[in-house]
């Protein structure tokens, strides 16, 4: 992540309207859905950047807006009837092109070619009526002017690359004939068939067993090395994050609460929510004598995001800053170290003290 100016307000828009240096840059992205119950602010002012060859992990609970962010980058919110029901603002820059204001046809040309996505549940993401091969061939031929035979050869080559045994036979198989892990591999093959420069993986391993998860993460890592793509991986599993991320973005209530390199976020986390996530995880590498330290309460509703800091109703330290600043003022992202940002009202001294004295020893 590049160095950005110090204040949060300027953070999102160092030079609005200008193409940024980073390969993927999201600036002050807002995705709102008007519903009968009110405006759902799924993503409410999110900024981040990813360079080619790097992996950004977006972490957060269900309903924190992480999947909506990924769909927004892919331009999938604006499709069909759903498109009328979404309010999007901000900027998404992909390789020098701005996508939020771009023509849907232009985004369509990029989708699958420049950016591709791996979904959580491959069984529902693939068409049950067509063979795996058919679906990969289609993805390839949409963007390349080749005949079916060449495309099929390419599909077999990709299936082989992602480790599907006997790819020349399996290419004619249907999704239901594949096991969960194989299906996810096939989906990765489909996503990578056009050598996209940006790969978005939305909980790619959540539905899989640990042994298969290890295989898939290894595969994503290898393929990234081979193709040099930028990867945005969405997950709620901090173990996966520690395994694969270069940078981490922690989302809460539609906003980024902490962002930094994987070492920053795991070694020197600055936001009480990140502490809560780390404390909630039973860890296989540590003694089990301690109780887990859960985050109390429930994740917020995105219609009625709490005033001030969205995390304050669940934050054990909300009363430390003077006055009722945590309840009234929304904290902006502040730089807390090189490339490490956090949105919290606690003073840096308090944060360091709480982390080193109270949280870290219990993890």
């Amino acid at each position, binding site marked *: 992540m590049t160095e950005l100016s110090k204040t949060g307000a300027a953070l999102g828009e160092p030079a609005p309207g200008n193409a940024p240096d980073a390969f993927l840059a999201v600036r002050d992205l807002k995705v709102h859905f008007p519903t009968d119950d009110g405006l759902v602010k799924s993503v409410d002012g999110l900024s981040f950047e990813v360079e080619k060859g790097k992996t950004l992990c977006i972490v957060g*609970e*269900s309903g924190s807006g992480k999947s909506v962010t990924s769909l927004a980058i892919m331009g999938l919110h604006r499709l069909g009837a759903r498109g009328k029901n979404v309010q999007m603002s901000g900027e998404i820059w992909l390789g020098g092109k701005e996508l939020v204001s771009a023509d849907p046809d232009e985004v369509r040309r990029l989708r699958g070619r420049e950016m591709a996505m791996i979904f959580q549940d491959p069984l529902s993401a693939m068409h049950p009526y067509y063979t795996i091969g058919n679906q990969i061939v289609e993805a390839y031929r949409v963007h390349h002017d080749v005949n079916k035979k060449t495309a099929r050869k390419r599909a077999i080559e990709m299936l082989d690359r992602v480790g599907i*045994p006997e790819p020349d036979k399996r290419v004619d198989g249907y999704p239901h004939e594949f*096991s*969960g*892990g*194989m299906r996810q591999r096939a989906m990765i093959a489909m996503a990578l068939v056009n050598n996209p420069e940006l790969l978005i993986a939305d909980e790619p391993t959540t539905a899989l*067993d*640990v*042994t*298969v*998860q*290890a*295989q898939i*993460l*290894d595969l994503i890592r290898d393929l990234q090395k081979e193709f040099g793509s930028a990867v945005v991986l969405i997950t*709620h*599993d*901090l*173990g*996966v*994050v*520690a*395994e694969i*991320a270069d940078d981490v973005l922690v989302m809460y209530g539609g906003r980024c609460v902490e962002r930094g390199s*994987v*070492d920053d976020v*795991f*070694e020197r986390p600055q936001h009480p929510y990140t502490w*809560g*996530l*780390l*404390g*909630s*995880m*039973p*860890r*296989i*590498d540590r003694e*089990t*004598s301690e*109780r*887990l*330290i*859960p*985050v*109390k309460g*429930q*994740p917020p509703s995105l219609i009625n995001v709490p005033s001030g800091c969205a995390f304050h109703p669940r934050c054990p330290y909300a009363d430390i800053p003077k006055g009722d600043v945590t309840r009234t003022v929304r904290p902006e992202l502040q730089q807390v170290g090189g490339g490490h940002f956090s949105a919290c009202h606690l003073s840096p001294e308090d944060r360091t003290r709480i982390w080193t004295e109270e949280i870290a020893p219990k993890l």
Partner: protein
Amino acid sequence: MSETKKTDADVSTAPDEREVLLKVEGLQKHFPIRKGVLQRQVGAVKAVDGIDFEVRKGETLGVVGESGCGKSTMGRVITRLQEPTGGSIHFEGQDITRLKPAGMRPLRRDIQMIFQDPYGSLNPRHTIGGIVSAPFRLQGVEPEGGVKKEVQRLLELVGLSPEHYNRYPHEFSGGQRQRIGIARALALKPKLVVADEPVSALDVSIQAQVVNLMDDLQDELGLTYVIIAHDLSVVRHVSDRIAVMYLGKIVELADRTSLYEAPMHPYTKALMSAVPVPDPKRRGAKSERILLRGDVPSPISPPSGCRFHTRCWKATEVCKTTEPQLIELRPGQRVACHHPENFADQAPQDTVLLSVAKEAASLVADEVLAESAETSAAVAAEVASPETAGVADTEVSEEVSEKPEVKITKTGPGAKTEDQSTHSGARGTARPTPTDPQPTDEPEAPSQESTDS
């Protein structure tokens, strides 16, 4: 969970002294596959295919395994939600395997279940009060102070507000619904609670709340849990003993500390090495990882011999032909493997690796292979010369010193009574004299066992 249970020494000794609450022997559940007009049975999904274990009062038995290994079916069979195909289930000494529904009914209040999906397991048209009071209604129990008061007490117990009595399930979040499910399971003060993936549908922060709640309730009410989960970190956190299942069989059953510190079955080892650790510094240590090839084979026609031999990097000819029995290699650690890790080889004459094993080994880091060969060799050497064992006071020799007295025992239905009484004593504290076969420190434990079996 109580402080006493947490300390390592107690984990290995305490469960033995406790009374056996549930005893399962040779349990099988096959689902028939029928085809054709006549619906003739052409095969069977062998979801659970002969497992033995026992659950002692007040302990938590964790059951882990990949999807499709039969762990959920096992949970449903031991609660008699599904009929077992074979084997026996004893609850508090009573054979409940073939009890009719009417015979089961009084036992239903002692065995309760918590389900995985908090959305699917609560009737959307009933209020929370109705859902949690259903057990009282069905069992004809009139709690002290009336049903409503008791239900509100239960709601408070699981961390909900008593005012939620008249609300409907859709008004609650996933974590709260799971609490409702727990309140319902606890309504009749059960002795055994079987929880099938109780936290896997919940967010991490909520997951921790529910895990802590289950811990507290166990302390307060003296519950016994069987917790089925696929998340090894969660299972390790909650369990006293852990059973690892693979394709309908238990491949390893051990107390938590032994299992996580010195897993013996290669599958256990692979499974644990695959768990991502939330520590980026460990990424360099990736070489410890054992990647398993391919997927779990089909339970319709499981592989011959050891079911893991198709993916195991240590598989030899004997693994293909002979099914390993679940035997107690170390006190409190039962393993079904011919070539266990961290222990002497059970079939040392058979050294030629199968070709699949060679392929599988290519995915295992050399360090791991070297290390496992080293430990196995060390243990084997110690076994060969047991005199040296009593001298050194290291951990390895201590374990080995027990080896001569722990006779290799089959825990299958056929061969156990005598042997079990021998090593339930041996499972106690390690004794320095390897020749002493009689248990001295726990007189009740063996008799307890033999009366049960």
